[in-house]
Each structure stands twice: as structure tokens, then as C-alpha cells.
């Protein structure tokens, strides 16, 4: 009876330790371009703003969307996102790009757009 709980407990503790270890290893840190350069090739996420003045383009043959992102330290880098222009891209107050930094270009596999006002209570403009 007691041994059952002890064995069960040990299994759970070991499992959780390994889980936490792997959690720390697969996490995608919120970062900026300077940190991204250091981490070279590790998957991270960068929160920033689209540099409107530099425009954006979509290459439909390669299915790549290219734009410039300014991170929170005001550093600007070119982002190549493998996909089409994300929903709400123009009106997003900021953009989170998830991907890897390599040779001055941020290769993004996923982009989240955050809208300036939340879904509720935004539209009534008296």
C-alpha cells in the first residue's frame, strides 16, 4: 500500500523534473535583435513595430512576406516570413515575429499581430 504511493510519487517527481528541464530547453524567449545575434540560430520571438516607411512586399512564388521590424531597442532588421501577409498586419500596434536570426535577416516562421484596441469596446467613435 505504502510502496505504491512511494513508487508513484517517485515516477511523478522524476517525470516533472525531466519535463521542466525540457520546458526550459524548448522555450522561445522574448528577445530583441541584439540578443538574437548572440543566440545565433536559436528560435526566439521578437516584439516590435513594422517600419511603415520601408513598406512591405509579398512574393507569391516563394510564398514569402518581407518587411522591416523595429524592436524595442529601436534596432531595425529585415524579416522574411514564410507565408502570406498576416491578418490585421497594417493596423497592428505591434507585431510578434517568431523565428531565427541569421546573417542580418530574421527568418520568421510565425507572426502574431496585436491589434491596437482589443476586440471589445473599440468601435464606438462619437
Amino acid at each position, binding site marked *: 500500500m505504502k510502496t505504491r504511493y512511494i513508487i508513484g510519487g517517485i515516477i511523478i517527481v522524476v517525470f516533472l523534473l525531466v519535463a521542466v528541464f525540457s*520546458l526550459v530547453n524548448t522555450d522561445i524567449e522574448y528577445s530583441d535583435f541584439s540578443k538574437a545575434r548572440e543566440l545565433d540560430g536559436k528560435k526566439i520571438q521578437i516584439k516590435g513595430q513594422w517600419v511603415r*516607411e520601408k*513598406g512591405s512586399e509579398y512574393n*507569391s512564388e516563394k510564398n514569402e512576406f518581407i518587411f522591416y521590424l523595429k524592436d524595442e531597442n529601436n534596432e531595425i532588421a529585415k524579416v522574411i516570413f514564410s507565408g502570406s501577409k498576416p491578418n*490585421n498586419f497594417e493596423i497592428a500596434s505591434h507585431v510578434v515575429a517568431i523565428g531565427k536570426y541569421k546573417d542580418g535577416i530574421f527568418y520568421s516562421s510565425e507572426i*502574431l499581430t496585436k491589434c491596437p484596441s482589443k476586440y471589445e469596446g473599440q468601435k*464606438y467613435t*462619437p
Partner: protein
Amino acid sequence: MFNFIGDFAIVLNYLLFITSFLSVFFYLKSISEAKFLSLARYGLYFTNSGIILISFILLLLIINHQYQYIYVFNNSSNDLPFGLLLSTFYAGQEGSFLFWLLCLVVIGIFLQNFTKKNGLESSVMSTFGIVVVFLLLLLINKSPFEKIWSLYPEAIRTGIPPVGANIINISSTQWVMIPPDGNGLNPLLQNFWMQIHPPVLFIGFALMTVPYAFAISSLIIGNYKNWIKYSLPWLSIASFFLGAGLVLGAFWAYETLGWGGYWGWDPVENSSLVPWIFSVALLHTAITQLKTGGLVKTNLFLTIITFSLVIYSTFLTRSGVLQDASVHSFTEPGSAVYLLLFIFLLSIFILGLGLLLYRIKAINSEKSEYNLISKEVMLSLGSIVLSLSALIILAGTSYPIFSKSAVDVSFYDKWNLPLAFLINIINGLSLVVGWGSDLPKIILKKIIISLLASTILTIISYFLGVIHFSMIILIWSSFFAIFINAEKLFRNIKLGIINLGGVFSHIGVALLLIGVIGSGKYSQTKHIELPLNEEKEVFGYKFKYIGEELFDSNKKSYFKVLVKNTNDETILKPIMFVNQMANGVMKIPDIKEMITKDIYFSPIGLKDFESNENVTNIQLKKDEPYQLDDMTLIFESYKIDMEKMMMGGEFSINASVKVLKNNSSEILNLSSTFDKNGPKYTPVKTSDGKYEFVLQRVLKDVVPLLNLGYVKLTDEITAKPKEILVADISIKPAINLFWLGNLLMLFGFILAYIRRKREVKNIRD
């Protein structure tokens, strides 16, 4: 009248908070002194009637389009059909809390009846009432009856109102204009599956309160034996609804969101998956208690954890703590709701755990002698593996709260793969071993045919493309589970289908895992461009874009795509439209469904002016020169039709831009109109015919900003390119096994519910 009933509902809400609180108090008192029972019941009846009345009021406001209420304004509009209009009741945060309460009321009526017969009314209904008290408190804080001017004081105006405008006088000089139309329902939610997904999930959430109430009741009165019997039918039906809610959400995502999947390990999805997995684990250990009298503490603990995680799920998704980690748009409800939800969560958890620890010495499980290879051990192992899977998902989902990072989705796949394998093996073995003990030799005899058959099928699937080691192992274990369960099904069908809920669910889970292997691991996607009337071949099918067609009284259009293979021809109708409310382009895929696979056609864009790759976007500041090649552009003035914009109708934006080139200058008068369906641009060329401009938007900042798009018109590029439909085409093998597996699994829950309910009745009779 409509202005008054909203205020009435708010006052009633406060009153109900008090009566529900009193009802809990008197129910607790009535455990020792029966004379308080009638007072407690009056409190309960009053609260129940009040909540029904409040719900009715909200429904009335929605049906009558009372847009002076923010909730109605933000979630509905005049053009919604009746069914969708009803679904706006729970489309927003406030309404969904009310809906949850309404579910609790209905469940509470049945539960009171049920517990009255079993003599558990006082202890069960007091616990149940605590949840109602908290939700009423949340509803006070997030009321769907707030008026527009309470959030937007700038809506209050003085002076003479415009003729014919629908206004409310809020004092002798001040008035507010009632918007003639609401913002409408998020277009992504305007779908049959999305209409039923949230209520089903909320019914599941509400039903999970019942097992918790039974557990707490048993701890209060100190009878740890019978509660599990009473709890089981409720737990089965709660697991059914929560599971069905998850499946409906997955189906909706697959059918409408267009990214090609049904599960993305998103925090919103995960947070309801975790309590569901725990509830399933609990179902298994509960059966052990029912049969052997063991695992009492485990069951109490798991029940408390399951319900706490339901509240935790609400906390994660409603408090805004996961803002940055999810693609779902969370609401920022303000710190009061955050705090309330947090207190709610802590109270539920501490009440349960505290009572359990307080009583832990007094709880004695039946001790029985059993072998390592026995049903008890198998059920416990199954529950442990399920709990581990849930813990992993919980850890990954909560991780962003404690660190400035998020977890890569690969984390979930990596961990759940071996766990899914174990679940399959235990799924099968648990059926062949008996209670008490069994000899390994006998077990082997029972499973040898299944072992052989699953190995043969695995070899076949290898040649069909399941070539990765991890997938081979997983598919083998799934086949193994299916064979053993199928054998059991045929052998025991004479016992009556009601007793075979577990077998159906087990087959369902194994089938859905095979579906995941096919549609997840072995799905392929190709990005293609389809110029109008040109045929292209992908995955052995010929695709041809044959033009756009209008529908929904010419407000939307779909692309007609002809899909052909040797013996069959289908037209797919993916949809794209601009929606003002969601501030973007809505893309709805279309799916060619076949028995063995789906072809998933997800539109990405139509190359026209806006998505023309030759268009460059620039931004001008007012009165500040902008150098474009050899021209200087100056954004001189603009005009936005504010009155029309406010009324929600079509409105236009005009802007004039001065173009200086060499020594000549010209003024470009740009104009675009916007309505519910999005913008209509009117391109304007420069006098030399070399550039074409469109006005995209004007941002009214301190210094106004003008967004322009332009195309350089050279010999090769004309402003109107040939229409090209850009799309992602995916092939999803075995996706139907995933849906079929889910249906079988849910069917099993229903059978379990009927069976457990009968058992309770038999005991009573």
C-alpha cells in the same frame, strides 16, 4: 422601458448576490439544524428565478436591438439572422458569464432534486451555491447591462440633437445618440459550429461543479463511500460535454480558420483540454472505488483538481495574463476581474485541498490484495499516464506567466507522443486483465491474436507511408488497442450496449490517434498560384480557378475552383472578404471531403491592386515633403465623413496631395470609400501617366498621417494584372478517422452516463 430594465437587471444582480450568499449560509447551517433548510431553499429559489429573469432581460435587449447597451452594440447587428442573434448572448465576456450562470441554475434544479432524494441536499447545494455566488460577483463586475455612455463619456452631448436621430435624454440638457446598428458578430463566429461550441463547453464547465460539490459534501459530512456513486453519472455527462465542446472547437477551426489544422496547442484550447483529461483520469479511478472501495483519497483529490482547473482555465483565458502567448484575441477585462477570478480559483482550490488534508486521517480506503497485473493497477496506471499528459500541457500553457518566454509547440508533441503510446497499451491491456489478479500466461493467450493482427496492419501502413519509427510504434499500439477492444465488443455485445461505453471510448481514442498520425504527421501542403482559367496539377488533382461569384445578396464573393481527377469533378468555393469589425481579410477555406483523405483548399489572396506585388506602401506626414524618386509629395489636406462614419454606413475619406516635379506642380485628389464590406479604392494617375496612387487610410494623430499605395507604371507593369488566385492546398490523409474516433469516444461517455445513472437508481430502489 428598455432603458429601465437594464438598470433593473443591475440592481437585481446585487440582490441575487446577497440571496445566493444567504442560501449558502443557511444550507451550511441546515447540515446540523434542519430548521434552516426551508430558508436556504427560499434563497436558492429566489436566486434561480432572478438569474433566469436577468437572462431573459438580456435576451430581450438583444432581440430588440437595444444598442444603447455596450454589450448589445459590440456583439450584434441588425442584419444577423435570428439564430446568430441568439448566439450573441454568449459571444462576449459578460454574456458568457451570464450563460454559465444560467447553465448552473438549470443543473442546480436537477441537482437539488437528486440530492433531496439521497439526503445530501444541505452539504451538496451549499458547495454548489458557492460557485453561483462567485459568478454573480463576476457578473456584477462585468455586467452586460452597461450603457454606452458609462464607457464612453464623450458620447454625451449637449445642444440640439439632429433631426430624426434616435436619442436618449440623460438629463435636461444632455443626450446620447443611440447607434442605429451594432458592430455585429465576429465573422469567424458566424458559423453553425461556433454557435454551438461555446454553449456546449459552458455546460461542461458548469456540470463539472457537481462532482466537486459531491466531493466537498463527503468531506463535510464525513461519509467517503457513497459520494462516488452519486458523482459518477454527473462526471460522465460533464466529461461528455467538455469533450464535445473541445471536438466542436477543433472542427470549427478546421472548417473555417483556414490554417489547415484542428488543434494548435494554443493556450485557450489547452486550458480546457487539461481539466477534461483530468476528468477522464478520474472516471477510471472512480470505477476502482466503485468496484473495490479503494482509491478514495485519489478520487477526492482528482475531483478537486479537475474543478479547480476548470476555474484556472477561465482565469487564464479571461484575465489577460497570457496576452502575448496566444493568437486568440484576449480581452483585457481590467484588474478587478483578474483579482476576482484569482480569488475564485484560490477559494475553490484551498477549500477542497484544505478539507481533504483536514480529513485525510479519517478517510480509509478498502485494502484489497491484488497482483501487479490486475485491473486495479491497469486503471491506476492509465490515470497516472493521463494525469502526466495533462500536467505537461498545464506546465507548457502556464509557462509564459512565470517567464518571459513561450513554449514551442514541439514541446507538446514530443511529450505526448510516448504518453499516447502508453495510453494505447494500457487502453488495450486494461480490458483483458481481471479484477484482483491474473496470470501473465493467460493474458498472453488473450492478446496474441490482437498482437499479430496489429503487427500485420502496421506493416501494411508502412507501405502506405507510415515510415517514421515513432509513428510506427504509435500506430501499432493504436491497432493493438482497437483489436482488443473490438474483440471485447463482439464478445460482450449480448450484455447490452449500455455496459460497453468504455469499449466505445477506447476504440474512439485509438482511432483518433491514427487520424492524428495521418492528418498531422503525414499532411502535405503546397503553395500554388492559379491564374484565371489555367489548369495546374497538385497531388494528382487538376485545379482550375474559373472566376469569382457573388453571394449573400452580393455582399461577399467566393472563388470558384474546379478540381478534377480521372473520374470525378468538384467545384470548391473558398471565400475571402474584407471585414470591418475584425479589421482584416477573412479567409474561409473549402474542403473536398473523401473517405480516405481531405483536400484542403485555403485561399491566401487574389492579386489585384491591393495585393499586387508591385504596390509599394508609403506614409506621408501632413505638410511634410516626401521624396519619391524625382518627385516631392506633400500631404496637404484631408476630409473624413465623420457623421456617416459614426452612423455605420458607407463613408468616404478624401485627401489632396501636391506633387512637385522639376518645376511643375499638380494636385492629386484621392478618395476612397469604406463600408461594412471594406474599402473601395479609386486609383489616380499622375499627369505624366507614370505613377498610380491609391489612398489607403488616414490616421488622425497629432500630426495626421496618410497611407498611400503606389505603382510605378512601366511598360511591363500595368495597374491591372491578370487575376491570379494564390492558395495553399493540403492533403489530409485519414482525417475522417480522427472525427470518427472523436464521435465514438463521445458516444462512450453517453453510454457511461446512462449506465451510471441507472446504477444510482437501482441502489435507491
